[in-house]
């Protein structure tokens, strides 16, 4: 059985699964129920001067019958008095001494930072998370993402906090920037002990086309909100790994962004996170989802021969390279399993219109295929396609022209039956070579371009 416990910048947690600062960590009762369910840590809903919220607060993006692929919120930080929150933090920490309790903070002035840090630490916080990322409501007041988007301000406030704090200071970054490494470097220069990212992405989820009001609607108007949930996972993974591979940043990362399953968590950890934070999936399904996260991650580590989460942290980071370092000679082609194919022909439609027209249907000769939009006719037509009779299920099973297939993956991605289309490695007959290799050798010129370029390169 793998050891799931982690040490995050000095904060011990029985497992890497934390709740993010959000409605699920609004009250002490909630946090305790979450700990009872198995969560290793929680980041308290951001403390500051209590705000007033609007109604309604959330919007969602559904995808077909899948509800809440993305969630958008226009909710602000805590609307409860500071003393109530602090009292509950004290109680939770006393009852759950082994869980990680991080308190999120967002205030404006230096004096306010000094006061709230002292109060949060007196209440028993294991660490502090500075919210430099809220992308709505607070940034207009000079806080939240307004800070996250200004590296110099971010660095200064981080420095104050690190000076006042006796516990680790985690800086939570906003993704609403051009280059996430800039605020990350600023936080590290300011002395941050750790980073957490991503906060939510500025967004508008839709429009009420009858009232002509963006969503979610508050009376006769709306405003932009913060987007999160499974939809943002790829953006978060990129930003986490950008920081993880940065040679100048060595602090631990708490990864956030659409994590719903143990596999999502494992991916974030493999790309550099030491702990992960979850919000949307809990809001959708409840605290109970952590049971399979723990069970699944534990079995995964066992299967891979890893004894602890620490052995997984950053395992995929070295394989994240620049595009120019990718092997141009690596070749895969699509392979359609005729026994599993159900004949929907979505791969055919995708390849015809969205890729390279190399998926063919049985029953066509060369003339017909070219007339329908193919550019080449395959030299080898598989027997099953030659023998297929019209009107039979076999007649609907497409086949791949492997000579023309460029191995883009699109057909495998659209195929609805898992395991039907696989990308198989085939030898390209060429030695491994990257674009950077070609630049170094001077063989990076591809003919057929601009005259100006050809002249500049002495090829004109």
């Amino acid at each position, binding site marked *: 059985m793998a050891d799931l416990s982690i040490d995050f910048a000095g904060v011990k947690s029985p497992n890497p699964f934390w709740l993010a600062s959000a409605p699920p960590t609004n009250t002490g009762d909630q946090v305790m129920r979450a700990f009872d369910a198995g969560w290793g840590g929680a980041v308290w809903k951001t403390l500051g001067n209590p705000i007033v919220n609007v109604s309604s607060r959330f919007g969602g993006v559904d995808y077909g019958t899948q509800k809440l692929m993305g969630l958008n919120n226009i909710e602000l930080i805590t609307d409860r008095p500071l003393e109530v929150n602090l009292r509950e933090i004290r109680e939770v920490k006393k009852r759950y001494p082994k869980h990680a309790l991080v308190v999120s903070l967002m205030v404006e002035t230096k004096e306010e930072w000094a006061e709230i840090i002292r109060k949060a630490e007196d209440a028993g916080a294991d660490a502090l998370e500075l919210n430099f990322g809220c992308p709505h409501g607070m940034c207009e007041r000079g806080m939240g993402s307004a800070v996250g988007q200004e590296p110099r301000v971010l660095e200064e406030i981080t420095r104050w906090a690190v000076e006042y704090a006796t516990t680790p200071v985690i800086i939570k970054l906003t993704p609403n920037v051009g280059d996430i490494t800039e605020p990350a470097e600023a936080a590290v220069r300011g002395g941050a002990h750790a980073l957490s990212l991503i906060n939510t992405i500025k967004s508008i989820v839709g429009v009420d086309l009858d009232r002509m009001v963006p969503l979610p609607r508050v009376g006769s108007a709306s405003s932009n909100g913060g987007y999160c949930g499974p939809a943002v996972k790829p953006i978060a993974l990129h930003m986490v790994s950008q920081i993880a591979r940065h040679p100048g940043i060595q602090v631990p990362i708490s990864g956030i962004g659409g994590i719903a*399953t143990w596999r999502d968590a494992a991916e974030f950890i493999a790309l550099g996170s030491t702990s992960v934070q979850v919000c949307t999936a809990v809001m959708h*399904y409840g605290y*109970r989802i952590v*049971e*399979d996260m723990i069970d699944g991650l534990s*079995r995964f580590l066992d299967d891979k021969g890893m004894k602890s989460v620490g052995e997984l942290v950053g395992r995929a980071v070295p394989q994240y390279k620049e595009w120019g370092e990718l092997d141009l000679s690596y070749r895969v082609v699509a392979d359609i399993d005729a026994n*599993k194919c159900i004949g929907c022909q979505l791969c055919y439609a995708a390849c015809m219109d969205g890729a390279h027209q190399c998926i063919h249907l049985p029953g066509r000769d060369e003339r017909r295929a070219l007339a329908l939009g193919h550019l080449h006719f395959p030299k080898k037509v598989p027997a099953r396609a030659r023998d297929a009779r019209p009107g039979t299920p076999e007649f609907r099973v497409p086949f791949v022209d492997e000579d023309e297939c460029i191995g883009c993956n699109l057909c495998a991605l659209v195929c609805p039956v898992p395991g039907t289309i696989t990308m198989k490695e085939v030898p390209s007959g060429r030695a491994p070579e990257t674009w950077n290799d070609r630049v170094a050798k001077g063989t990076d010129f591809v003919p057929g371009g601009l005259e100006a370029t050809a002249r500049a390169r002495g090829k004109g």
Partner: protein
Amino acid sequence: MGELKLPGGRLEEKFEDAKPLYDDAEALAEANRCLYCSDAPCIQACPTSIDVPTFIRKIATGNIEGSAQTILAANILGYSCARACPVEVLCVGACVYNQWGREPIAIGRLQRYALETALRKRPRLLAGARKPATGRRVAMVGGGPASIAAAGLLALEGHRCVIFERKAIPGGLDVLGIAPYKLQANDALAEIAWVLGQGEIDLRTGVEVVDGEGSAPGQISARRLLEEFDAVLLGLGLGEDSKLGVPGEQGEGVVGATWMIEKLKSDPGYTLAGIRRALVIGGGNTAIDAARELARIGVPDVAMVYRRSRNEMPGYAHEWEGARLDGVRLIEKRVPVAILRDVNGKLVALQVAEAHEGRAVSSATTDIPADLVVLAIGQAKMTALARAFGGVQLDARGRVVVDPATHRTGNPRVWAAGDCVNGGKEVVNAVGEAKIAARDIDRVLRGAAD
């Protein structure tokens, strides 16, 4: 005890699986359709309270072993139940999709997929953490699902279990009674072999527990079990198929339903060749099963003869619907009054009278030609064997009386579970009762205050 496997050539092998094993893609698609309800009705509908939404979600997240473990934690015979349960009236019938007018989740098929997939990869999977040996010994009387389940659970608790099964083939109705198009005998036997691996379990087939001395070979007395074991679980099941008690009943061509199904499933020598017209007497699930099996194996004309009206048939509506689609006819409101034979004693016809409220009302009769008459009008209770354990009480219907919270009988060292208690229900009910009994046996064996 050699490998538990029946030889080929049995009629059962001719049946196709009505719900074939899902492949990976089918399972993933169906699992993702599940809404992952909170306080799900399917859990409440399951007599063993399997956490259905969780095991299905684990299929969706790719944690198949976790899924199997979730099932087994609640139901150690989850594999049999996945294939044999009347899901239409249990979990699948309770699925919230029914409220929505949409197809309910195929819970049983997903359950089978999770267990078969996990056990294929890790055949020695344990249903739970195995505790150290306690030195306590428990005897199970009867080797059906109640005893098998209890033995598995108690063995994981560290107790030594000995199962006494009268027949050469263990498993009771789980092996010898489930319709072949749902679950075949060798698959149920493989599950039993797996359960035996959970801990110190000794399965003794061909050993009958009896009242009295038990000195004949292949016998052991109830008294000796009480002397030599710390606790006894009665998993007696039910007895022989009940008889009609009408003239001409004795002789070839008239068989009991569970007897016939057992033969069909386990005896390579059993044949139905030459049977063109079969009549099944009864209106319950055993009658419907027998009728469907005869129809599906190729008997051209199969009819059920029931003394009341179709609406009053106690069998599941969905099973009757399946029978109807299999081509089974129903002769309702008729009661058998005699079996007619030719001069050589060969079965010729069943003589029936019109019935009202289940009783013959007219002396006018009809003769229904038949080559085979199958009696599915109930089974005897194992009352004599139950009474061999002093203090065990029976109710007016011959069922062993237990405290429902503990399944302990009137004898403080004897517990009971399964058909001998509930009168004849499903495998899942046997497991549910065995869980209660096992938990209480464990509590008592560990010296908890009584």
